[in-house]
């Protein structure tokens, strides 16, 4: 075609420029092949972002194939803006999780806020109204002033964006470890609801259809955000320009309402948000998915700053922008809705049939690249992987060298006050977790539960991950995270129906990191397969490394469960004095990698507990059966801090009153610390009305789940007696509720409000 020769030549790039764009010699050769000529600088920039780790998944893609992604309920698996599962009555739940780690370190408030903005757009571009947000956060220990600063900034960023959008932040998790002091993690999960047959996709279908740009004007912000997330790229000429994007939640709220109106009136063929790599990634991905091309005229793109080059416009990561393809003849209606909401909008191009992403500025072509090459034919690497040399040291732990616990009451109080375990109320009271009037179970139980208006159904959601387990044994750590997430859901009375993941790791070019990644993915994949929970979306964040120090491998899972009847919604806290307390599952000598070892013995070593998949599955079936038969008052899974912390939380978390407990434990040849603070998985503490105890026992036995009666809910202290051989008491503790409650409820606020001097 004659047009091809007209691509604006800017001179072939020098090898220095190629290197600055983070492209290897090999990758550059591939670019030459795709183009059949030298790229100009704009084209080089486009390839550079699209083939960055962040956008192309070049190091992870072949491994992610291991995830089970199919299932009866799956409506949309990985590959779209978000995944979707069928929840019945013609509805689908659309969800995904994303990371915003690096920006949140540079500018905690804006970094976290724009992270929330991005994940929300992923959900409403699918045509779904977002109804819940969750977040998983990792920070350094709070004795560092910098960690407190980052935490406060991140929390207020999430709160300001989510609250303004009117989407409740209903849950999440936070853990602390110095390994994150220079690489905090901010992973955000969002879920929305859509009519199944109205699900929208990021498709640029229909030759001749108009391509529209709506939302914020394009500025120079965040140019190279995607490469930044993929490496430590810094272009000297860009240095003066802060690489920070500022979010505008108000504009995004307008975009949300406008998009849902487009959907209601059926005006669109496809839509995608401009996230990483902005206009470039949205246009070429939409074309590539549909097998079409897209022709864009940059002169029509609304701009915030003057004298922007095509390079800058194409790579800008200004927030709150979307690209959409209108149904033929419907452009005017789209524009009218934008006018109503006061949103900038412009027709910027059209769909073509030649498979090219063609960028013009006025009548000049500034770039022309096969869309498929950008979106799908990026490099794929099977990077070398090998266990780190220190792995054996990490796993070696001679527990007999450590003294057993002498004063369990002191240890419990210490654990309750450790920020990883302490109440996160200081954080979630800053999140509007009730807007939308759907939140049945607010933050503070194992899972958040949100009802679905117009049905009797509800969805339970949780995010989980234990990076210490993953450090010690990434395969087991991956599986344990899946198990814990699913256990949290069944404790709320929900059947797990789908999962999304956010895989946060160090530098994939290091074999030890790659090994962690591969093992963790395998662990997650095997567990999901065993529990039949499909992975429908996710995100990978590599290069979480500062000065050569990587974070612990931190895969986070966001899992969704379905509750058919409101009466099955179950919470973790005790409800009534006199109820019986039972432990389902078995306590073993599982001290490796526990919070107890870290807090009390300053060790992060050993092997995490073994995950017995069949036991875990039996537990799920058992829990759901008990709950659906109405036999359970409360259910709380045992995780960080072990049995004693679990019991304390059952006592302390009821929003209307505190309860005590009288509990007798048998030591059963276990170390006392393992019994009280070990973290054996597949365990749940339930409370049962006395008239149901017999029935519960029978059912549990029938379903093959080990169980132990522990005692009763009271209005007094938490009294624990441990009996050894011949039923002789070996340890007795009595903790006042007010003391425990004071430690647990206020520890975080105290540490955060401690001012540095």
């Amino acid at each position, binding site marked *: 075609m004659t047009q091809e020769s007209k691509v604006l030549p800017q001179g072939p790039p020098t090898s220095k420029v190629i290197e600055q764009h983070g492209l290897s010699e090999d990758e550059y050769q591939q670019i030459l092949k795709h183009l059949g000529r030298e790229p100009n600088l704009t084209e080089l920039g486009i390839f550079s972002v699209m083939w960055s780790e962040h956008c192309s998944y070049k190091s992870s893609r072949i491994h992610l194939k291991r995830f089970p992604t199919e299932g009866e309920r799956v409506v949309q698996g990985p590959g779209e803006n978000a995944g979707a599962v069928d929840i019945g009555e013609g509805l689908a739940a659309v969800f995904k999780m994303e990371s915003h780690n690096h920006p949140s370190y*540079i500018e905690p408030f804006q970094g976290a806020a724009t992270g929330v903005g991005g994940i929300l757009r992923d959900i409403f571009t699918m045509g779904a109204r977002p109804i819940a947000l969750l977040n998983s956060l990792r920070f350094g220990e709070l004795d560092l002033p910098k960690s407190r600063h980052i935490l406060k900034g991140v929390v207020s960023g999430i709160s300001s964006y989510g609250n303004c959008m009117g989407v409740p932040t209903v849950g999440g998790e936070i853990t602390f470890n110095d390994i994150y002091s220079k690489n905090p993690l901010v992973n955000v999960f969002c879920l929305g609801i859509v009519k199944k047959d109205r699900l929208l996709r990021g498709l640029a279908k229909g030759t001749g259809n108009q391509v529209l740009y709506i939302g*914020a004007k394009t*500025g120079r*912000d965040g140019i190279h955000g995607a490469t930044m997330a993929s490496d430590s790229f810094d272009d000297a000429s860009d240095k003066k320009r802060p690489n*920070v994007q*500022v979010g*505008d939640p108000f504009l995004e709220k307008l975009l949300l309402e406008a998009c849902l109106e487009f959907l209601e009136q059926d005006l669109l063929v496809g839509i995608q948000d401009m996230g990483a790599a902005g206009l470039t990634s949205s246009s070429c991905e939409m074309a590539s998915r549909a097998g079409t091309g897209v022709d864009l005229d940059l002169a029509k793109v609304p701009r*915030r700053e003057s004298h922007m080059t095509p390079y800058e416009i194409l790579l800008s990561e200004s*927030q709150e922008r979307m690209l959409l393809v209108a149904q033929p003849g419907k452009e005017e209606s789209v524009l009218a809705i934008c006018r109503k909401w006061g949103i900038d909008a412009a027709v910027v191009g059209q769909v073509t049939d030649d498979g090219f992403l063609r960028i013009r500025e006025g009548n000049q072509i500034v770039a022309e690249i096969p869309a498929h090459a950008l979106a799908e034919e990026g490099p794929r690497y099977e990077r070398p992987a090998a266990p780190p040399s220190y792995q054996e040291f990490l796993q070696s732990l001679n527990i007999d060298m450590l003294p057993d616990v002498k004063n369990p009451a002191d240890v419990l109080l210490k654990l309750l006050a450790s920020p990883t375990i302490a109440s996160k109320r200081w954080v979630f009271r800053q999140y509007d977790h009730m807007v939308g009037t759907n939140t049945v179970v607010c933050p503070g139980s194992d899972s958040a539960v949100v009802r679905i208006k117009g049905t009797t159904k509800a969805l339970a959601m949780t995010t989980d991950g234990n990076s210490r387990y993953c450090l010690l044994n990434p395969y087991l750590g991956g599986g344990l995270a899946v198990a814990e997430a699913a256990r949290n859901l069944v404790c709320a009375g929900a059947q797990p129906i789908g999962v999304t993941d956010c895989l946060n790791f160090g530098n994939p070019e290091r074999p030890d990191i790659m090994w962690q990644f591969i093992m963790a993915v395998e662990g997650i994949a095997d567990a999901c397969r065993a529990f039949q929970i499909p992975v429908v979306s996710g995100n990978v964040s590599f290069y979480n490394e500062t000065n050569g120090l990587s974070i612990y491998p931190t895969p986070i899972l966001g899992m969704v469960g379905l509750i058919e009847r409101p009466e099955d919604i179950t919470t973790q806290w005790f409800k009534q004095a006199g109820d019986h307390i039972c432990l389902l599952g078995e306590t073993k000598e599982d001290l490796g990698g526990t919070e107890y070892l870290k807090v009390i013995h300053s060790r992060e070593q050993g092997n995490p507990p073994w995950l017995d998949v069949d036991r875990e599955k039996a537990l799920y079936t058992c829990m759901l059966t008990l709950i659906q038969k109405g036999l359970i008052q409360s259910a709380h899974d045992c995780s960080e801090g072990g049995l004693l912390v679990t019991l304390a939380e059952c006592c302390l978390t009821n929003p209307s009153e505190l309860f005590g407990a009288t509990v007798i434990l048998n030591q059963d040849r276990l170390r006392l610390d393992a019994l009280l603070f070990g973290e054996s998985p597949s365990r749940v503490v339930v409370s049962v009305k006395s008239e149901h105890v017999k029935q519960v026992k029978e059912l549990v036995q029938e379903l093959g789940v080990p169980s132990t009666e522990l005692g009763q809910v009271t209005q007094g202290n938490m009294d624990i007696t441990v009996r050894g051989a011949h039923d002789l008491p070996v340890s007795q503790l009595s903790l006042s509720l007010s003391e425990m409650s004071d430690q647990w409820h206020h520890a975080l606020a105290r540490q955060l409000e401690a001012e540095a001097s």
Partner: protein
Amino acid sequence: MKAKIYITLKNGILDPQGRAIQQSLQALGFDSVGEVRIGKFIEVDLCETDATSGETTIKAMCEKLLANTVIEEYEYEILET
């Protein structure tokens, strides 16, 4: 002495508040309004008397706490009282 500190967003950084106020002023009929940028104005009382050391203090306060130098810049004035 007393310091007046003005903190504004760096050039090129999106100012959503300014934009909303601009639109609202225009809607109110203030047609001559162009760009609006919004920042912070901080008054600090200092019990120092030496102008140079006062200035050093103010600068340090801005860098350390008052301005977020990733996205903001600051100016100040020092008034003897």
